[in-house]
């Protein structure tokens, strides 16, 4: 009843009837004004689409603009770096030494065949049948791969170390302790790449310990190592040096003030040393890089004055001995024949140092270590006084000391009257001349690995009133090994101005500016 009434009422009035469109013509002749019955204007959808796209593109451009303006990394125009690297393809490393001993290729799919045990495999594969010779051969090979994955067998007499290490293919472990060494890292890596001893026989081991807040030694080390093992580290350094030169021409920093006072021949020597061309295998990756991280809780600072006060020397040397022992214990493997200990802050050193130290077949060998000084301080000075020959006075002095006292060289408190390797140096002498020593310094030591395997280490306790590298030399001598040094073969340490030196340089600067 209700609906019918409503419909009748709706169509009842004639006026209303006229409003509803009845024919198509009434749509198109403009009679009907109600907008909702009119089709949309032609083309407006396209404009809408175009406007949305236009808005998206505009947003994108604004975003890029904002990013560009807020970037704090200098957008460096790489085309400005005028370093042309001739094009090259990636070479695959084929030398056998990269893949021997614990780097053998063990295929997991073959090993996993034996997960249920060898008996189970044989029964499930072959049942009760006897294996054919071909199958037997394959089975033997796979079984030996399985055993190789967990069992290692070495004859330690094979790794005694020979003076002709390159021909004999002796593996060498290079150990470098690092602490707050971020700034010297490019220098260290340049020296490592410069080693002419075959890189496929060198295993690098770094120990990063007790870095101060805000130091990025570990992170830098990882980044540089990745580039090193790719073979692209020299390109990175070329670009870094180029950028430094560009920025240096604009401003001089306080750190480099002392360079003005160094002897110009030395500065020229340093520049020449790091310029290309380099030796043929400069970029070749090393056999492995092992980075160990361990904090020992050292509280002594790494600044020059902190390190050298005599009272803390004993404690400091024992802690350093402990750090060195940790590195050897973890990194040395049965197949290493030699171990080369190296400090990170060496400035000038020949690339053939390992072969030169090996050549005399001593069990421990060290070169002479000096450092350059400003010209007003005689331009050079022995740096490492820890390599010496024992004297009677020192032995008598040791008897008067406590069990825990550590004799350190170069301080008036301990008059030892020893002959130091450093003072035996003659700049024109024969670099192959050897001298027998009792104590050695730690800047650059080449030792046979069998010493470490026999128990010789860097004592972290007072051993015969010495610690660390000097006690290392003493212990080796006690166990019957030969310890030697090359007095005329010099390695140059970097020069870090002490507080007194800086004061002198500052006064000289002021005088120069007054003129």
């Amino acid at each position, binding site marked *: 009843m209700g609906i019918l009434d409503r419909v009748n009422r709706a169509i009842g009035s004639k006026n209303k009837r006229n409003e509803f469109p009845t024919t198509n013509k009434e749509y198109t002749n403009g009679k009907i004004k109600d907008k909702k019955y009119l089709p949309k204007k032609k083309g407006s959808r396209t404009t809408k689409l175009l406007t949305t796209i236009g808005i998206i593109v505009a947003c994108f451009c604004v975003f890029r603009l904002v990013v560009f303006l807020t970037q704090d990394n200098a957008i460096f125009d790489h085309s400005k770096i005028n370093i042309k690297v001739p094009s090259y393809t*990636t070479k695959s490393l084929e030398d056998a030494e990269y893949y021997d001993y614990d780097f053998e290729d063990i295929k997991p799919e073959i090993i996993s065949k034996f997960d249920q045990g060898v008996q189970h495999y044989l029964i499930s594969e072959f049942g009760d049948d006897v294996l054919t010779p071909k199958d037997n051969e394959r089975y033997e090979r796979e079984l030996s791969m399985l055993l190789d994955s967990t069992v290692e067998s070495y*004859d330690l007499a094979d790794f005694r170390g020979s003076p002709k290490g390159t021909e004999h293919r002796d593996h060498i472990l290079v150990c470098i302790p690092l602490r707050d060494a971020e700034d010297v890292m490019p220098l260290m890596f340049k020296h490592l790449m410069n080693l002419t001893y075959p890189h496929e026989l060198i295993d690098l081991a770094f120990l990063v310990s007790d870095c101060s807040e805000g130091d990025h030694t570990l992170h830098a080390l990882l980044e540089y190592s990745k580039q090193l093992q790719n073979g692209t580290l020299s390109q990175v350094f070329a670009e870094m040096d180029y*950028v430094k030169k560009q920025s240096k021409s604009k401003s001089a920093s306080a750190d480099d003030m002392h360079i003005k006072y160094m002897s110009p021949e030395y500065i020229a020597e340093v520049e020449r040393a790091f310029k290309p061309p380099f030796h043929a295998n400069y*970029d070749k990756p090393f056999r492995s890089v092992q980075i160990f991280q361990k904090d020992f809780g050292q509280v002594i600072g790494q600044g020059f004055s902190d390190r050298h006060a005599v009272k803390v020397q004993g404690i400091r040397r024992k802690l350093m001995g402990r750090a060195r022992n940790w590195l050897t214990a*973890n990194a040395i493997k049965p197949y290493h024949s030699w171990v080369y200990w190296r400090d990170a802050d060496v400035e000038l050193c020949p690339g053939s140092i390992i072969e030169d130290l090996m050549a005399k077949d001593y069990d421990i060998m060290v070169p002479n270590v000096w450092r350059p000084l400003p010209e007003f301080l005689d331009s050079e000075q022995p740096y490492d006084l820890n390599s010496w020959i024992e004297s009677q006075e020192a032995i008598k002095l040791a008897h008067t000391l406590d069990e825990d006292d550590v004799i350190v060289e170069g301080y008036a408190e301990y008059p030892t009257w020893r002959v130091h390797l450093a003072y035996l140096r003659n700049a024109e002498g024969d670099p192959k001349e050897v001298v027998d020593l009792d104590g050695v310094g730690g800047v650059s030591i080449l030792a046979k690995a069998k010493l470490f395997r026999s128990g010789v280490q860097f004592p972290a306790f007072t051993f015969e009133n010495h610690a660390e590298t000097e006690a290392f030399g003493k212990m080796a001598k006690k166990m019957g090994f030969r310890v030697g040094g090359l007095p005329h073969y010099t390695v140059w340490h970097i020069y870090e101005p002490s507080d007194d030196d800086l004061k002198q340089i500052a006064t000289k600067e002021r005088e120069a500016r007054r003129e």
Partner: protein
Amino acid sequence: MGSLSLITYRIKKNPILTLLLPLIALCSIYFVVFRTDDSIIGIGSLPISGHKWAHEVENTWYFPYTSRFKMPRYSYKTQHNWLFNDRVEDIIPEGHIAHYDLNKLRSTSDAAVDKERVLILTPLQSFDQRYWNNILQLSYPRELIELGFIIPRTKTGEEALKQLEIAIKNVQSDKKNQRFAKVTILKQDSQSFDKLQEKERHALNVQKDRRAAMALARNELLFSTIGPHTSWVLWLDADIIETPITLIQDMTAHDKPVLAANVYQRYYDEDNKENAIRPYDFNNWQESDTGREIAAGMQPDEIIVEGYAEIATYRPLMAHYYNKNNPIGEEMMLDGVGGGCTLVKAEVHRDGAMFPSFPFYHLIETEGFAKMAKRLNYEVYGLPNYLVYHKEEFN
């Protein structure tokens, strides 16, 4: 399908779209997938086509002024297994780079739960099947045990090596969960001591040479096998044929830097016609005043050895402190230890404690090692009531 027809309808209606839509599509694909500049999508500085997983990407780039990508000059052949361990957080496989955080290495009293690796080291002069069975019976999880053996270059050594290799082959090709984590077999480089009959090898005058040779063998074995994942080192002689199966768990529970068990020997007592036990290892002792006096009067290169009437040191020997009524976990402090069954925390060895082959405070080999550990400020303990048994010797 419906949307496709809609699109075609729209394109038919507005021909400009035929030009615009493909252009827009291409541009967006290019920007998102291939452009290597600043992160558009926020994935990082790598395009999707070169995308790496989170653990492969470094957080920050260290060289701000150099071009970021350089083609590597050299590449290693694909390597599957490296350095015999599968701890992903340590290895950066490209370029043979490994990073070990030794600060995370711990030696706690809950060794098995904490998954600490134990290295069992044995200087092997002759292979005894009972010794091997004892090792196989240890209940400590095998994937946390590594074995190390060093064999002298003598005829008996060759025999022992053959038998050892057969035994190792059997266990390492067994089911995966039965295998030890790693086995290292070394042939000694230094000269070994040849006289092995019990009477001869225990004569006083040869002690210095014999123990010096043993010390060198132990050092060679130790420094060749200890690695960045080792938490404990258990020195077990090849003559120890019987230990409790929970040996490692029991000894690590004490959490001591150096801990020695009491080595006894089972024998058949002829007088009482019964099986009995008697002390065997007299190298576990505490220092006595007489001992110190004797040491003070000796030449620097002389050594004191225990158990000889010629050198009466009157030291309290742990071997005589065994009391079966006392608790089995009773500890006592020692000044010298023997190498029969001694558990050492790896950090003690890493700090430099080794077995001196030269007279060290008039001590040598394992006793010298205990003295060295004490000089490094570690404490040395023994378990007088915890027995392990040496094999019987009939000569």
